[in-house]
């Protein structure tokens, strides 16, 4: 399934880029993210908890940044495994930044997400809605973080 969303942050594009490339800033904005480990500047590992109705899931996620063109484009792949319980998430993500003004940046993301295993077996049609909700929660958290922290950065 394809998830697409865009949001604006009231900071210059350079600051937005710095923030998005900083796992210390990004990780706490991901709903359910418990921990993040920087393996190297283009590899991260994270543990993410999420709930789908009564089902509680915990994914161990690896993110690899495959392409970057500062400050406008970031391409990454995400692989998530449920650690033995046989659900898998794979996604190809493209993040584009556009300067709308001196202090305004539009961040657009699109993700091609594939889910397999026990969680897909149940056929929840609302998975896409859930993914969209998570995307919006991330956007909101990231925006707040970046806009409030910009003077300190």
């Amino acid at each position, binding site marked *: 399934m394809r998830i697409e969303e865009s949001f604006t942050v009231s900071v210059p594009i350079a600051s937005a880029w710095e923030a998005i490339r900083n796992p210390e800033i990004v990780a706490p904005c991901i709903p359910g993210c418990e921990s993040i480990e920087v393996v190297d500047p283009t590899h991260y590992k994270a543990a993410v908890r999420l709930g789908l109705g*009564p*089902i509680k899931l915990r994914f161990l996620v690896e993110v690899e940044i495959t392409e970057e063109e500062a400050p406008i484009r970031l391409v990454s792949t995400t692989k998530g495994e449920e650690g033995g319980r046989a659900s898998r998430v794979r996604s190809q993500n493209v993040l584009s930044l556009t300067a709308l003004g001196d202090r305004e940046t539009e961040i657009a993301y699109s993700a091609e997400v594939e889910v397999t295993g*026990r969680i897909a077996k149940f056929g929840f*049609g609302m998975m*896409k809605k859930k993914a969209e909700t998570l995307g919006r929660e991330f956007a909101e958290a990231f925006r707040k973080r970046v806009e409030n922290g910009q003077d300190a950065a």
Partner: protein
Amino acid sequence: MMEPGAEVAFHRPRTVQEALALLSADDGAVCLAGGATLVAMMNADLIAPSGLVSLSGIDVLRTAERLPDGAVRIGAMRHHRQTADETLLEDGQQVVREAARQIANTPVRNMGTIGGSIAFFDPAADYPPALVAADAIVDISGPNGDRAIAAAAFFVDWYETALGAGEMVTGVRLPAAPMGSVGVYHKLARVSGDFATASVALVLAMENHTVSHLAVAVGACAPTPVRRPDIEAEIIGNGLDDAKVDRLADALAERLDPVDDVRASAAYRRLVAPRMVKHALCRAAETLGGRQ
């Protein structure tokens, strides 16, 4: 969360209070009603509760009765088969009976319960729009006592209800429907017994050629049943002509938020739901003989 190899506890309390105490004592414990969904999810390895609190031994949950105010109370542990044959349901209340009749198939109707069904809340299930159209009240018991909530407020989001930690549904109450009213539940499904692709539940009453009561809910097309009481209020007191039927159908369509899934695309649901509303309303009006 349970450790692998730890045994799952099994309890069969005799009272609601006992059940609540067991749920409070173990936050990994869940209620076992009919088991039609819970055990299926356990079999599919989607959930692993640490304890099961069976409700089948609690007599007060298994009854149905008419209350002094004319409402009908259906206990949470009533099976769909029982609700499908419930003679206590009269007039427009029969929307709930019609919904129960179309749930799954015979063996599942023998096992599944109204309490278990609404507590899980699959938005494509049959009770939710019927209960919303019937203005049903959901009775809940929990560690902080008993409370009641309108069905429309009970269903919150995909697979999410207003139940708090340690709370359980004890029953639903259907207020008396206007005398002579009709309850209709239409379900579009790929095959007999499937969850709804789209559904319409409505209660309609007419006096002479004037609408005296109207409640229409669309199911399976949004995170919760969709209803437009504001538009219903505009129609009540007037006749039911094509223009009004279209207005309500369009108003409901505006609020739909369907998904693409294996049963249908969101686009298809948006297309078919308003047509189902019109069809169901016209059929109900014809039944009442009040069509203009």
